[in-house]
C-alpha cells in the first residue's frame, strides 16, 4: 500500500492527496485484519495443541488414498481431504486448490513418528491395525477384535449388525447411501451406541466425530520417545470434516481445554456435528459443532507395550488384507 501511495505521488499533488486519504482509511482495516489473522493463527495453534498436535513437533499425516472400499474414487475422499486441509493450514489448502501438490504413488511412513490419521477404519487401514479391526473372511465391513487396547469409544462398521441406512451428499459424487454407522461406548452397564440422526428422507441430520490421542505404540521406539497417534475420524465424512469447525469454535475448545486439564496421555473427544446443510455440488456440511464428551483413559506403560506386541502379532495379516492381486506384467510392458 505504501508503494501504491508513492506511485500515486508521482502523478501529481492531487493524486497524492487522494492516495494518502485512501491509505489512511484502509490502514486501520489492514491492521485489524492482520491482528485477526494472528489471533486466528494463535487460536488454531492452541486448538491443535489441545488435540495433541504441537507446533514445535513434526507430524506425518495420512489421508486414505484412492482405495475406498465402497466408493469408486480416483483420489482421496473429498471429506477426508477437507479435514486434512483444515488441519494442515491454508497454504496447503491453497496449493491443493491450485493443483500444485506433487502426487506420489508410494509414500513410506515411519511408524515411529508422530502420526495423524484422517478417516475411520473403513478407509484408513492403519487405524484398523491400531484399534484391531479385521476384515471378515467373507462379506463387507469390519469386525472389531480389539486385542491392542480398549478405548472408551470406537466405531462400528459391521453391516451384519447395522442395517439402518443414511444418505448424504458428497462433493463430486452426489447423493450416496451408506449404513448409518454409530459410535460404540463402554459403560458400566455394557456397550452403548450413539447414532447419527437422520430425517424422514434418511438424510443425515447430525454426525459424530471421534478424536483419539494415544501414545504411538506401533513401535517400541515410538513409544519410548513419547510419540503420539492422533486419529480424526467421523462416523461419516461430515463428522470427519467437522474438525474444521472444532478448530474454530472457541466454546468447544474451551470445554475441551477444561476436560483435559490433567494433561492425560490418552484421551478421546466426541463431537456432534449439527445443523447440516445439504448441497448437491458442495456436499453435506455441518454448520455447528457441540462437545458430547471428553474421556481420559490413562494406561500404564506395560499396557502400551502389550499393545505393541499385539501389533507385531497382527502386522503380517494386516498387510495381507490390503493386497492388490493379479498384476501380471511390469508397467512398461502393459
Amino acid at each position, binding site marked *: 500500500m505504501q508503494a501504491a501511495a508513492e506511485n500515486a505521488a508521482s502523478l501529481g499533488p492531487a493524486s497524492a492527496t487522494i492516495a494518502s486519504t485512501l491509505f489512511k482509511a484502509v490502514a486501520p482495516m489492514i491492521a485489524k485484519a492482520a491482528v485477526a489473522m494472528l489471533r486466528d493463527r494463535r487460536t488454531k495453534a492452541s486448538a491443535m495443541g489441545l488435540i495433541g498436535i504441537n507446533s514445535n513437533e513434526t507430524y506425518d499425516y495420512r489421508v486414505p488414498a484412492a482405495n475406498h472400499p465402497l466408493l469408486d474414487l480416483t483420489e482421496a475422499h473429498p471429506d477426508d481431504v477437507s479435514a486434512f486441509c483444515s488441519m494442515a493450514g491454508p497454504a496447503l489448502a491453497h496449493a491443493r486448490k491450485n493443483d500444485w501438490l506433487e502426487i506420489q504413488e508410494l509414500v513410506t511412513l515411519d511408524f515411529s513418528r508422530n502420526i495423524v490419521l484422517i478417516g475411520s477404519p473403513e478407509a484408513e487401514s492403519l487405524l484398523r491395525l491400531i484399534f484391531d479391526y479385521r476384515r471378515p473372511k467373507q462379506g463387507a465391513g469390519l469386525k472389531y477384535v480389539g486385542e491392542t487396547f480398549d478405548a472408551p469409544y470406537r466405531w462400528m462398521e459391521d453391516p451384519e449388525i447395522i442395517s439402518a441406512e443414511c444418505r448424504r451428499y458428497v462433493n463430486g459424487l452426489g447423493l450416496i447411501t451408506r449404513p448409518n454407522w454409530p459410535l460404540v461406548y463402554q459403560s458400566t452397564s455394557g456397550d452403548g451406541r450413539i447414532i447419527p440422526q437422520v430425517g424422514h428422507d434418511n438424510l443425515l441430520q447430525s454426525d459424530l466425530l471421534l478424536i483419539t490421542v494415544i501414545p504411538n505404540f506401533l513401535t517400541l521406539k515410538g513409544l519410548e520417545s513419547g510419540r503420539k497417534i492422533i486419529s480424526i475420524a467421523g462416523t461419516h465424512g461430515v463428522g470427519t470434516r467437522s474438525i474444521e469447525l472444532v478448530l474454530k469454535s472457541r466454546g468447544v475448545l474451551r470445554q475441551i481445554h477444561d476436560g483435559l486439564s490433567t494433561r492425560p496421555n490418552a484421551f478421546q473427544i466426541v463431537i456432534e456435528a449439527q445443523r447440516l446443510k445439504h448441497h448437491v455440488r458442495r456436499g453435506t456440511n455441518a454448520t455447528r459443532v457441540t462437545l458430547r464428551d471428553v474421556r481420559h483413559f490413562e494406561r500404564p506403560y506395560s499396557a502400551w507395550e502389550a499393545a505393541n506386541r499385539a501389533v*507385531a502379532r497382527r502386522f503380517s495379516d494386516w*498387510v495381507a488384507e490390503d493386497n492388490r492381486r493379479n*498384476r501380471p506384467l511390469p508397467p512398461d510392458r502393459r
Partner: protein
Amino acid sequence: MGYGDTDRHLARLGADALRLAAMKTLQHLELSTGWGKVALEEGQIHPGDPPLGADYEAHHRFTTVLYCHPAMAYLNIEDVVGEERLLEGRIAVKPGSRVVVLDPLDGSTQWALIRSGHSVAAMILISGLDGNLRLESAVVANPVHTFTLVAGEPLRLGATNGRSEDDLWLTSCLPESLASPSVAVTGYKTKDRGSMLAFLKEIPDWAFLTIGGNPVTPYVMAGDLTAAITWRSQFTWDAVGILMATQTDAVVGNIDGDVVNGPTFAEHFDRVVLTQNARVIQPMIVAKSAARFDELVLAIDRARDEFGPSFGTGVEELDFGDDVGE
C-alpha cells in the same frame, strides 16, 4: 522357560514375519526384470544354479521387509544367511538369539524361463543354551500358496496374499484323483539325462515333471502330485519342503528306501542345518503313500542296475544307442 526353549508365541511371530517378507518378495518378483545372470567375483561361491540379478534383488527385498516388521523387536535375529549370503566360517549365535536361513528365489531357473514354479524358502533357527541351533519356524511360499511350519505344530497351508488366521491345518495328503500317478524330480540337469531316461523306463505309467524341490514338494500333500524326488543331495534350505512333509502322513525316505519319521528327520535337520554350506540332505523321496514310495524306490534300483555305476552321479557318459537321429 529358559533360552532355547520353544516359546510358541515367538515362534509364531517369527513365522508371521517370514510369511510377510516372502509375500512381498514374491510380489516384487512379479515385476522384476532381473533375469540377467550375475557374474561372480573371483573366489565368490554361489551354491545351486548360476545366480540371476533377481536372486540378489529378492534377498534384499526379503531382508528389507523382515527388518521393518514390528516382530523384529522381539525376535533377536542376528543375521540373514543362505543361498545369496553364504556363511564365512562357523556361525555363532548367542543363546536365545536367532538366525534366518533364506533361499529368496528357489527355482530361479523356472522363474527365468516361465515366471512360475519358484518359491521363497526361509527358516528361523534359534540358538539354545548349548549354542546349538534348531529350527523354530519355516515357510515355503509360492505366488499362490504359503506353507508354514512352527516347531511343535502341524503344517499349515494358506493363500500367500491372504491372512495366516485363515490358514488350514495340513496333516494328511490329499488323495490321488488323476488317472495316472505323477512324480516331480528336482536337481535333474541335462547331464543326468541318461540316468533319468533309465529311471523313466521303469515307471511307464507315471507322469513326469522336471521341476521340483521346495516349490513342488508340498504339493504331494496339498495337490495331486503323487511323489517328489530330489535327485541329488541338497542344502538344508532346499529341503524345507521335505521337512514339512515329515510333519504330515506323507511317506519320506531316501532313494535307497530307508523311511524316516518326523522327529528323526527334524533332529537330523537341526544337526546339519548350517553345516558350512554343504549339501547335507541326501537324495530323498516324498510320496503320498507307502505303496507309491516303494514303487519309486524299486524303479530307481532297477534303473541303477540297468544303467551302471555312473547312475545319478551327474558325470555319466551319455549313450543313446546307434539309432539316435534316425
